[in-house]
């Protein structure tokens, strides 16, 4: 590797100082003159017809300015177009920002009230009367599939809102030539990353110029932007996304309802309106991950080789069809995980129930896909009497097979999966733990170790879903396009404008390192604009703080822009210094001759000349020292678009990791304690180890928390029992163990600097790692953890059937 000055270093962060001193700027920190406070009226029934909404009494309260009822929403807005998450819908289902005639989940928005203060708004909200006709609820996907079940969407004629599948290779042949079949049934539950900053929006409308300004914490600009034009028919609007207090997918989709509603309120009142969700609203209605059930069957050979896998999936997608298939389609991203299996069939059904709609969350369907693979590997090991590690080693893609093309079209760029696994076994001291396990059992203590492998795909390709819905119209653009703007300012500093917003992943720091390295300046000379602005940010389809996009598209864009700006700077400098650009080098704030260092010019002087004195600018050079570069992934073919066999590259880079968990299970209470947690991770070339470690620590913590009990629980009537962070069992410092990370970097041959994704990755294998470890600990009792979460209650139940 070449010597680097800033890449690969944990430099002082750009974002840290402002956040530790309370100077971050979040949506709720903005106030405008005359601003009203909006508050949302939500359904108190999980399933009911809305007969009447009467806001008269509320409107009479002093300080209340307006109420937007379902009638107003229907009159003044248009329904959202079905996005790609709803592409599989048989018949169109109309969805507005609020419920119109019917509510289908507890907390579904019905109306918005705006008042001069939040407290007035909260008081007055109670005076809006809603006349409901309660309907029978259906909370279980299996029950919802029955023909006698109450229907959520009458127009669909069934609660099974989508049915479909994919098949790669020759599954029939695989099953016919198998020595044995291994079966498993698995479940994953509903949870969410619950960003600590709730959803929020501030909207301001100028009736004279017809311009709407929106500040919000949406993660995906495209969703916000399109929602405003679809629902409000506006021509002129601007979206600003300031600091986002955590996203994890929660702020991608359902937020559009509230942005439209807040904007509609601003339009109706002519005054700025701010809406900030509170925590219980978030738990009720901001979206949850999907509850999924799987019946899995593997066709195997006696040596452990997996010939094929067949999966039947049922998704409980809750009370909306707008995210119908997202947990299914996302499984294409890691469909074959790290294994060189040739055939696979995945068939799914998306079932609507009276639960909260599902939304993306830290990996979306990927943790489940990994859970399927890793659980079935353990089953195969048991069936054949092999060690779990050996079964995996037999099936892993080998290091000399890269770039490896998986049967579904994904091209794995680089990696060494066996090495990750071996290192994890070594780091966790596998043999020692096993020896300790035997000894501990004699003392009545139950220790277990689980070692699994998983992929972390990165860089979204929006054309993916066309493999599942070939007939769908209005699919988004393929591949990923995203820009970055770089400018050498008049004072010699460099300003960077990124194409995508950040949810707190140190984008300013990481991109400044890339720019500094490419230009030759120091990161201190670089200022990265911290908020996103639809009018200023060079954005494209890749400009979304989702899909592990940053490493590929943002880094690609700033890297490309840096090279272009460097060229411009050197050209101007060579003119000033009467030499050629090739003779010059940039170091810090100085452009100097490679031959004689005292032949030089400062960036500050160049900045001054570029903007202040035309006579110094050569005729063939444009004025200013600014460049905008749009990156498009140069290796997007083959399979950027699906072929006839549905082969498509769902994502473009593939990080991977092996996770090893050591647990101790208390058989009296069922409680699992994580004793050690070891990760060996390949995220390609690392730009900033502090940032990458943080992403791994954060995502594994959530994976562990989810596996050990965190989640949403409903009663049979449709009431949510987990309305607070405590009820939802969010892990604190007391539950999350110390995590040990080893980096094993295999650079990507496809990305600008060899970088691969580092974000949601460790949330993907961690539930599987804990399942394996718990199963190993409780081997004497024959306990098989199949249904997430493995709460004390659940494990106790397995121990005491």
């Amino acid at each position, binding site marked *: 590797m070449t010597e680097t000055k800033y890449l690969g270093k*944990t430099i*002082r*962060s750009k*974002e*840290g*100082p*402002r*956040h*530790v*001193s*309370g*100077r*971050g700027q*979040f949506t*709720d*920190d903005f*106030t405008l003159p005359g601003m009203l406070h909006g508050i949302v009226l939500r359904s108190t029934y999980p399933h009911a017809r809305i007969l009447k909404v009467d806001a008269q009494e509320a409107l009479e309260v002093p300080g209340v300015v307006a109420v937007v009822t379902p009638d107003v929403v229907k009159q003044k807005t248009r329904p959202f177009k079905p996005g790609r998450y709803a592409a599989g819908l048989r018949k169109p289902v109309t969805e507005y920002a609020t419920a119109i005639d019917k509510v289908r989940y507890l907390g579904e928005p019905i109306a918005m009230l705006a008042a001069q203060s*939040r*407290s007035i708004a909260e008081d007055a909200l109670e005076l809006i009367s809603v006349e409901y006709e309660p309907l029978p609820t259906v909370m279980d996907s299996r029950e919802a599939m029955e023909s006698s079940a109450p229907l959520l969407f009458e127009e669909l004629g069934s609660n099974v809102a989508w049915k479909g599948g994919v098949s790669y290779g020759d599954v029939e042949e695989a099953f016919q030539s198998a020595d044995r079949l291994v079966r498993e049934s698995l479940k994953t539950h509903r949870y969410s*990353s*619950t*960003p*600590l*900053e*709730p959803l929020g929006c501030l909207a301001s409308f100028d009736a004279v110029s017809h311009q709407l300004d929106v500040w919000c914490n949406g993660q995906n600009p495209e969703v916000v932007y399109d929602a405003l034009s679809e629902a409000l028919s506006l021509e002129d609007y601007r979206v600003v996304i300031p*600091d*986002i*207090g*955590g*996203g*994890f997918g929660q702020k991608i989709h359902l937020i559009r309802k509230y942005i439209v509603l807040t904007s509609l309120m601003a339009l109706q009142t002519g005054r700025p309106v701010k809406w*900030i969700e*509170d*925590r219980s609203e978030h738990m009720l209605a901001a979206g949850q991950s999907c509850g999924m059930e799987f019946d899995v069957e593997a066709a195997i050979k006696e040596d452990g080789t997996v010939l094929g896998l067949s999966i039947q999936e049922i998704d409980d997608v809750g009370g909306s069809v707008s995210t119908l298939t997202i947990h299914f389609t996302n499984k294409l991203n890691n469909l074959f995980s790290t294994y060189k299996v040739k055939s696979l069939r995945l068939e799914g059904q998306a079932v609507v129930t009276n639960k909260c709609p599902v939304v993306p969350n830290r990996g979306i369907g990927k943790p489940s896909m990994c859970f399927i693979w890793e659980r079935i590997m353990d089953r195969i090991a048991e069936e054949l009497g092999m060690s779990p590690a050996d079964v995996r080693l037999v099936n892993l893609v080998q290091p000399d097979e890269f770039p490896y093309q998986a049967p579904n079209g994904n091209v794995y760029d680089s990696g060494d999966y066996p090495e990750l696994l071996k290192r994890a076994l070594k780091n966790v001291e596998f043999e020692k733990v096993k020896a300790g396990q035997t000894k501990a059992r004699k003392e009545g203590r139950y220790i277990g170790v689980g070692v699994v492998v998983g992929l972390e795909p990165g860089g979204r390709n929006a054309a993916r879903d066309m493999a599942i819905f070939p007939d769908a119209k209005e699919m988004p653009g393929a591949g990923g396009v995203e820009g970055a703007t770089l400018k050498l300012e008049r004072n010699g500093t460099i300003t960077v404008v990124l194409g995508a917003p950040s*949810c*707190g*992943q*140190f984008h300013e720091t990481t991109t400044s390192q890339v720019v500094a390295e490419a230009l030759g300046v120091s990161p201190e000379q670089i200022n990265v604009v911290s908020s996103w602005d639809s009018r200023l940010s060079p954005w494209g389809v890749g400009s979304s703080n989702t899909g592990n996009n940053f490493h590929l598209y943002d880094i690609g864009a700033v890297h490309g822009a840096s090279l272009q700006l460097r060229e411009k700077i050197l050209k101007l400098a060579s003119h000033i210094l009467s030499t050629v650009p090739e003779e010059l080098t940039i170091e810090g704030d100085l452009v100097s001759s490679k031959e004689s260092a005292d032949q030089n010019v400062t960036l500050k002087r160049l900045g001054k000349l570029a903007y202040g004195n035309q006579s110094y600018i050569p005729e063939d050079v444009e004025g200013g020292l600014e460049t905008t570069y749009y990156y498009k992934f140069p290796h997007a073919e083959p399979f950027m678009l699906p072929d006839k066999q549905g082969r498509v590259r769902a994502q473009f880079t593939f990080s991977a990791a092996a996770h090893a968990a050591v647990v101790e299970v208390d058989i009296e209470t069922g409680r699992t304690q994580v004793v050690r947690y070891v990760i060996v991770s390949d995220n390609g070339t690392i730009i900033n180890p*502090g*940032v990458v*470690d*943080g992403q791994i*620590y*954060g*995502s*594994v*913590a*959530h994976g562990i928390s989810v596996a050990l009990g965190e989640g949403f629980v409903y009663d049979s009537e449709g009431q949510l029992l987990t309305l*607070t*962070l*405590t009820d939802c069992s*969010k892990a*604190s*410092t*007391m539950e*999350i163990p*110390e*995590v040990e990370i080893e980096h094993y970097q295999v650079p990507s041959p496809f990305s600008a600097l060899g970088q691969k994704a580092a974000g949601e990755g460790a949330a993907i294998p961690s539930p599987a790692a804990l399942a394996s470890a718990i199963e190993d600990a409780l081997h004497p009792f024959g306990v098989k953890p199949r249904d997430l979460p493995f709460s004390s209650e659940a494990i106790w139940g397995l121990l005491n059937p």
Partner: protein
Amino acid sequence: MKQLVCVTINGQRYREEVDPRMLLSFFLREQVGLTGTHIGCIVGECGACSVLLEGQLVKSCLVLAVRVHEKEIVTVEGLATEGTLHPIQEAFVEHYALQCGYCTSGMVLAGHHLLTKNPNASEKEIRQGLAGNLCMCTGYTQIIKAVTAAGKEYKKG
């Protein structure tokens, strides 16, 4: 009926008329303009709105603004002096002990409070001391490292 509250915040004296039911967190953010105090749950679970009230760590969403009359408060904005970060803030920056920054205000104050009381805090004591502050991004590891590292500065006094 508004009530008068005279309070010292970050060394500065404020004299404000407040609604008796106003929470301290909203008072700080909306009336005083100190938006570094973040609201994550309003029910005392997440700790993002933590401040020091008479030197004690409190969740400002669990305190009525009228209760701070003639009291002294330090918010996250009050830790740095003359543009220099406080050692606990410096440690958070150095160790990447934050991501989105939303829990950070409360987390920094919780770390500061526990080290002020016990600069020799062990990892276990640090974990206990921070258990009332939730973070959804970091998994806590780098936060615990930062607080551990900052302890050395507190020992120096």
